[in-house]
Every structure is written in structure tokens, then in C-alpha cells.
């Protein structure tokens, strides 16, 4: 078992014929992911190295039984692509695209409610269940299969922490990058709940950063709802207020969203927070060895 992406994943790539979509779609396939279709309006009937391309997501679903979508279309068209996937009955949508307007995401978030659709992202690296399926841009070769669930708002920082875990001989059940925007489809709490329910996952690492209050909500959730141990890391202790640190969501506004406040909220509930990525991995090793 793993979460979100697994051997049962049948992936349709929206934007498969673009350079990024093609590169990563094929890379995901080479990791063993069943990439069953691509969608590019106007290019239906073509194929990308044997993967059939359709004009619409609905067409791809009808022909191939796709149940998961990965979105690689440019930001101005990403909201449309998400709505199309939802309408076509896709259960899990992973939106890699960066730069989706925040107001679009407010509406999409409201639209998703009650439809039973899971959205990861936008502006995220996707999800990888080592040895089973990779949906997104996470370099699978850094990770190995194991018992640690990893959820993060960042991409490369996730690779760094995954690398530190691998160096210590630890592996992952699933690695999920939820994205660095102010509003994303799945929160820390959503993913933590899945790790709690997943038999393969025994420990969880949560990698947060400045901005918003999702880490604080996660702290409360971990205390009241989780039996599995969680270790956290927070980036941005030295970030000045009012400046966006690369991610649209990584900004300290007023007195809210500081790394220290997040660390305090986690530690107040007995959740250990690593000072560096290295120390974070060492804390996980202690859990595993204990």
C-alpha cells in the first residue's frame, strides 16, 4: 500500500505533447506508472511514444479508463484543465503548473467540496510511491521504498530531506508535494489523514514553511487524530516579513505565518521539529530505531 498514487493508478497527462509534459510523462512511465493517455485539444489521434492522445479528458477516460490526471498546461489554462478533469470523473488530479491565479484556486477549492475529488497542487512536484508509481516531477532515483510518509510544501527541499533519509538507510511509502501557493487542493491535514490510514506508513515527516496556518492546523490534527509519530521541519526562520520567498504562499504577513510560530505550535503538542534537514532525518531514524 501507499497513498494517492499506486499500481492501480491509470494516468492521463493533460499537456502530454508539450516539452515538459512529454519529458515527465515518459519519465513517470519508465518508473512503472501506467500512463494510459494524453490530452491536447486538436491533437486527438496522435500518440507520444505509443501513448494515445485525445482531444478531451472525457474522451481519454471513456477509451482508457484513466482515473488520475496530471496537469502540465500553462498557468492561464490550468484552471480550465482542472475543471475539465473534475467534470470527466477523474478521482485524483495532480497539477504541476506554477503561477495559477489565487482567485481561480478559491473557486476551484469551493467547487471540489463534496465532489469527492482529490486535487494535489498546483505549483507542486506531485506524488511518488517508490517502486509503484510516480506522478509528477520528483526524481525517483533519490528515493527508496520504505515506511516513512513524507509530505511537503516544497519540491527540492523534499528531495533534500528524502536524500538525507536515504543516506540513513530509510525509505518512503509515498512522497507528496502539496504545493507552495496560498490555496492548494490538498492540505497537510488531508495528506496526514491518508498516511494515518495507510498500513505501509509507520512514521511521517512533514516539511512546512512560512506563510499561512496549515502547519498549525496540522499540529492540532496530529495531536488529536494520529497514532503514528510525526517529525516536522519548517523552512524560513530567517525570512523577513512582507517579502515573498519564492513561493507565492511563502510570505509572512503581519504577525502571522512565521516559522517560529509554527515550530512553537508543533512543539507545544509534542511534535519534534528538526533544526536542519540533516537533523530532521536523524529524528526520524531515532523513531525507527526506538
Amino acid at each position: 500500500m501507499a497513498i494517492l498514487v499506486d499500481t492501480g493508478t491509470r494516468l492521463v497527462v493533460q499537456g502530454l505533447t508539450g516539452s515538459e509534459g512529454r519529458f515527465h510523462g515518459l519519465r513517470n512511465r519508465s518508473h512503472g506508472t501506467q500512463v494510459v493517455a494524453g490530452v491536447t485539444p486538436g491533437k486527438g489521434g496522435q500518440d507520444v511514444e505509443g501513448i494515445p492522445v485525445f482531444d478531451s479528458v472525457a474522451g481519454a477516460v471513456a477509451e482508457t479508463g484513466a482515473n488520475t490526471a496530471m496537469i502540465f498546461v500553462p498557468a492561464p489554462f490550468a484552471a480550465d484543465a482542472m475543471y475539465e478533469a473534475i467534470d470527466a470523473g477523474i478521482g485524483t488530479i495532480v497539477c504541476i503548473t506554477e503561477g495559477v491565479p489565487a482567485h481561480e484556486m478559491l473557486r476551484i477549492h469551493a467547487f471540489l467540496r463534496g465532489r469527492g475529488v482529490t486535487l494535489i497542487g498546483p505549483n507542486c512536484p506531485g506524488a511518488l510511491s517508490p517502486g509503484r508509481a510516480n506522478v509528477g516531477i520528483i526524481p525517483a532515483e533519490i528515493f527508496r521504498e520504505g515506511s516513512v510518509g513524507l509530505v511537503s510544501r516544497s519540491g527540492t527541499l523534499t528531495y533534500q530531506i528524502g536524500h538525507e533519509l536515504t543516506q540513513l538507510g530509510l525509505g518512503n511509502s509515498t512522497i507528496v508535494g502539496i504545493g507552495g501557493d496560498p490555496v492548494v487542493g490538498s492540505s497537510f491535514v488531508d495528506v496526514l489523514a491518508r498516511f494515518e490510514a495507510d498500513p505501509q506508513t509507520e512514521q511521517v515527516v512533514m516539511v512546512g514553511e512560512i506563510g499561512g496556518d496549515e502547519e498549525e492546523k496540522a499540529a492540532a490534527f496530529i495531536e488529536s487524530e494520529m497514532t503514528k509519530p510525526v517529525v516536522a521541519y519548517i523552512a524560513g526562520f530567517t525570512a523577513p516579513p512582507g517579502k515573498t520567498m519564492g513561493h507565492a504562499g511563502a510570505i509572512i504577513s503581519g504577525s502571522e505565518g512565521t516559522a517560529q510560530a509554527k515550530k512553537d505550535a508543533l512543539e507545544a503538542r509534542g511534535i519534534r521539529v528538526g533544526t536542519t534537514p540533516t537533523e530532521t532525518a536523524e529524528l526520524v531514524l531515532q523513531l525507527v530505531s526506538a
Partner: protein
Amino acid sequence: MDLYEYQGKELFGRYGIPVSEGRLATSAQEARAAAAELGGTVVVKAQVLTGGRGKAGGIKLAETPEDAEAHAGEILGMDIRGHTVTKVWVETASDIEREYYLSLTFDRSAKQPLFMITTQGGVDIEEVAATSPDALVRLHVDPLEGCHPWHARRLVYGAGIEDPSEQKQVAAIVAKLYDTFTGSEAMLCEINPLIVTPDGEVRALDAKVTIDDNALFRHPDLAELRDVDAADPLEALAREKGVTYVRLDGDVGVLGNGAGLTMSTVDVVTFVGGRPADFCDLGGGGDAQGVVDALEVITRDPQVRSIYFNIFGGITRCDEVARGILQALEQMGIELPIVVRLDGTNAEEGRRLLGESGAANVHPEATMLDGARRAVELAAG
């Protein structure tokens, strides 16, 4: 992107929110002419993207054009919390009977727009929220439903506004503020204070507007309002070159790929006792030219004593980064010590390229933590 008060008021005006008449001036003479044109008593207001203008002496009343000229002369060039005043807004003075507060913010926690209103305006709203929370009325709007008259009624009655004419005017402003917020894809639209004049007229006396950077591509008229002069000159250069750069005040220049890893690198440099000079994110691609551009920005900061490249290749290829570093060394003759830590995609090739170059000021390190320690040592001399 934050708008200046005068830009925010212009935006409000477009959506029908009442504001006072005013003119922008960049010199004392222009302020005088503006005051003469407007007639009567005016207010001269410093235009800076920070709060606390009033306390700093950046807002002055002027009864004559001569007064306006004198006040503008004092305010222009003034430093307010690190921002130099280069523009003043000269506006017809308002008689104030009462001051309210009205805002619409992007509540990322609830994932809905949030209205806030109180009749205790003109002061720090966080203080009102802390000391008399009942006086601050909050109301979320479902983005799929949009703003309806009942939202405005709930806010107006909730705030305890009693005069029927005032109720009507504030309700209209509530609806127009929602239009401004959604129409311009704002993250914040704040009116503090929203005033009532002795004649019972309701008007926005200030405007604080932040626009979503990700939405600017479809609002070219708003994108144009960005004031490149107001930014730190290095940040402006970085923007021009497409480099994500935030200046800090230390001496270790930090470069990473990806926002999270770069933020973490800045933290780790601090943790091992150093002082980061910047946050510089090469982003997802990070080709050789991107590295050259980033180094050009970082090395313009005279405080920088060492540079730390912390790269974890995913989409970014470490050999490209190495090529960029070598190209920059050749083109710019950088003599500062450069610590490089490469891992991930094509890391071995990258390390080989750097090793073979024989560049004396390039210091490879194997781990993120060791790289940070080395860069801090080298910055110390």
C-alpha cells in the same frame, strides 16, 4: 504587488467607490500647483509602500498652495521605515465626523474572501481585534456564490451603523469593494478610514490594495503600475533578469534551486553562525545563463564576502549549474570564494567539470551542512 494609496484610490474610483479629488506631485512646485488647482485646504500625503506615515510626519494639512509647497518640500526625500518618499498625493481635505474601517482580504486559512468592518476606524485594526473583538464584524463570502445584498446588510447592521443614508452608502461601498477585489484579483482591499463627513457623506480616505502577482498577466493595466524605482536596486535588477532574489543584510551570498531548499539554505547558514546576504532561487530550470545572471546580481552587493551554491538537481541539471559557474568566473572575473554543493541529476558530471577547471576560488563540499559551514568560514576571511 502592493499599490500606492493614489493607485488604490484610482482603482476604487474606477469601481465607483467615492474618494476625494487629488493630484500626484513629485516636487514641491508640483504640489503647490496641485493645491492651487484643487482650491481650499488640502492634505499632502507621502506615497510609500509602508504603514506609519502619519506618525512619521508624512501627512500634513495645508491651507494655502504655499503651505502645500513647504510641506511637500519637507516630506519628499523623507525616510519612512526605510522607504524614501519620492511622490506625494495632494488631496482636497475632508471634514471628518466619524471614522469606520472596512476591508476585504483573501483568507487563505478559510479559503474564502473575508469582509471585516468596524465603526472604530482610523486606528490599528489588529488592536481593535485584540481589545474589543465584538466591535469587529467578520463575514466570509463563498466565492461561488459571490457577494449579495444580504452580505452588505449583515455587515452594516452588525457594525451598528444606524443612519439610513449611511447604511445605504456603506452597503453600496461593500458591493463595490467586492467588485474591486474580484475584478482586479486582489489579495487585500482595505479602507482605513472610511469616513463620514458632517454632511453625512461616506468616502474612502485611504486605500491599501495588494494584487496577486500570479494574476497580473491578465491585468496589464495593473501590472504597469509596478514602481521599479521603489524596489531595492539589486531586486530591480534581478526582476529584470528574471532571477528570484530577496536582499538580506549579511555577507554570505546564498543560491539554491527551488524556494523551499533556498529558504532552508538561508536558515542553515544562519544556524551555523553566518549571516546570509540574500535569498536567490534559480528556480526549476536553472540553465547556465540563469546561473550567470544570478551571480551577476549577487556579486553587485558589496557586502558579499563568500557565495554558497546549494543545488539539489531534479529538473535542474548539476552539470548546467557547473557550466554557469565557470562561465560567470570567466566573464566576470569573480574573485570571491564560491562554495558549491551539488547533488541529484548529473551531480557527478557537475563536480567533474568544476574539479577539472582548476579554479582556485571554487570550493566543493559534499553536504548541505558542510557547505554552509565552509561558506561562513570563508566569509569571515
